[in-house]
């Protein structure tokens, strides 16, 4: 039996296809883009092709993330908090605190025995999300993927005083013209973002093990700054982007087994890969 988790984030779309024992058969990540509402089917097609499967082979599809309502072939929609918590716990059974820094939000979750018990999130302000780094990278002419590497060369602690992304953007232009180095400015920005997210996380009681996920976790500079701000070690999945989709696939399996236990078919009905049409 096969299951799929589709995580449509604000910035990236992620799909994980698993077998019965949670083995990942294929995973795919692509930019969500402005047309994301109509693209889930195309990304799914790619994921199926990689796993050499047809859509009808998939017993159950769970959609999650900010765009989860735009997946017409999903059997169920589940919030990303639940899916993240499940995905993280399957990778790190000892997790008590999970921090996810996404493209346009940041979430901190408390997890007990694999279940989400409490959370805080920021989706109101770009400071403290991946968007902050994207804007800064564009301003400095550095690729987002290279930010961590460049900041590692920093030799001086530099405090970025602006909270707002827009004001920080202006501040770094001033700092550059004052002669500060790109490396030091980037390290300062990483620290600014980390202190914002750590401040959010501290609204919950932070208990180890702490797992960091989301695209921003791929930035070594942020990981270092987060460790310093939280004062603890961090566990990072091999692919920190995929935990939500993985959790969705695991939940898909549970719902599928539940349906079959009741004697219902899984998949419940024939599906077609089609574009979401309820949005223009």
């Amino acid at each position: 039996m096969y299951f799929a988790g589709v995580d449509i984030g604000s910035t990236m779309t992620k799909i994980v296809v698993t077998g019965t024992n949670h083995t990942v058969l294929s995973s795919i990540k692509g930019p969500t883009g402005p047309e994301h509402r109509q693209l889930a089917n195309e990304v799914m097609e790619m994921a199926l092709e990689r796993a050499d499967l047809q859509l009808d082979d998939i017993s159950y599809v769970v959609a999650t993330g900010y765009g989860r309502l735009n997946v017409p072939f999903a059997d169920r929609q589940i919030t990303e908090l639940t899916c993240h918590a499940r995905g993280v716990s399957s990778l790190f059974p000892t997790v008590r605190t999970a921090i996810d820094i996404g493209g346009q939000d940041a979430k901190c979750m408390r997890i007990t025995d694999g279940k989400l018990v409490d959370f805080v999130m920021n989706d109101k302000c770009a400071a403290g999300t991946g968007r902050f780094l994207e804007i800064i990278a564009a301003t400095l002419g550095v690729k987002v993927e290279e930010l961590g590497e460049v900041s590692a060369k920093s030799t001086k602690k530099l405090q970025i005083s602006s909270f707002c992304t827009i004001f920080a953007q202006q501040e770094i232009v001033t700092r550059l013209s004052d002669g500060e180095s790109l490396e030091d400015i980037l390290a300062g920005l990483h620290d600014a973002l980390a202190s914002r997210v750590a401040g959010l996380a501290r609204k919950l009681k932070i208990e180890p093990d702490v797992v960091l996920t989301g695209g921003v976790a791929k930035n070594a500079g942020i990981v270092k700054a987060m460790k310093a701000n939280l004062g603890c070690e961090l566990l990072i999945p091999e692919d920190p982007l995929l935990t939500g989709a993985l959790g969705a696939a695991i939940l898909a399996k549970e719902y599928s087994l539940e349906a079959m236990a009741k004697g219902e078919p899984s998949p419940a009905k024939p599906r077609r890969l089609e574009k979401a049409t309820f949005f223009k």
Partner: protein
Amino acid sequence: MGIDIGSVYSKGVITKENELSVFHVILSGGNYRTAAERVRQELLKRVNLTQDDIANTVGAGCGAGNVYFASHRASDIVCTARGVNSMFPSARVVIEVAGQSSKVMRINKQGLVANFVISEKCAAGSGWFIEVIANVLRIDLEDFGPLSLKSKNPIAFSTGCAVFGESEAVTRVAEGIPKEDIAAGVNKALADKISSLTKKIGLEEPCVISGGGALNIGLIKALEHGLNVQLLVAPQPQITAALGAALLARMKVKGADLGK
């Protein structure tokens, strides 16, 4: 002379005793010291005076330290209060909407500040939000207010962040929402933030609006609606703090103690 070097605009005023003689406004640009010098030269030229004719100068604003020819610095809050008091002696609350901050202050009849709150951490609480969205809509700032007043269905922004708001405006433009509805939505969003700031201080009339934001008639209407009050609008609202700085410079000459 009063020189107010703000984050976005630099403003200068020369007064003769208590009367405004001339004012000048330029973009601050990257170098505040140059901006201060340019404002001073233009002011002197316009009234055909030399530096020797100026009895005293006070610098204000975030670039006050760059007004190297000033004898004193004063905070823009003190200067704004002083400037408003000279125009509206009865004013009790002043709302100042500037390029990168918003401030609400309570003042007494002598023009002294009793209390104030400031929002300077977030672009969505300042005039910058308007600039960002005007840029998305490709309209000039001076057209922003009048355009927004034409709106019948202002959009509701789902975010309180200028970065996310910019993306949202782009999406709405792509959806074919009229520009006036987007402009009116931004004015409403900013007015909501400033209203809650004002409520922290406590609204009391007469209430004056000043700063570059007071050039936006749409924002004024949205604030009046949100606060349920009639606002007095400072004439030439951008120069209020510079005017206050010039008046403080005069008070100093007359023997008042301004501190450092």
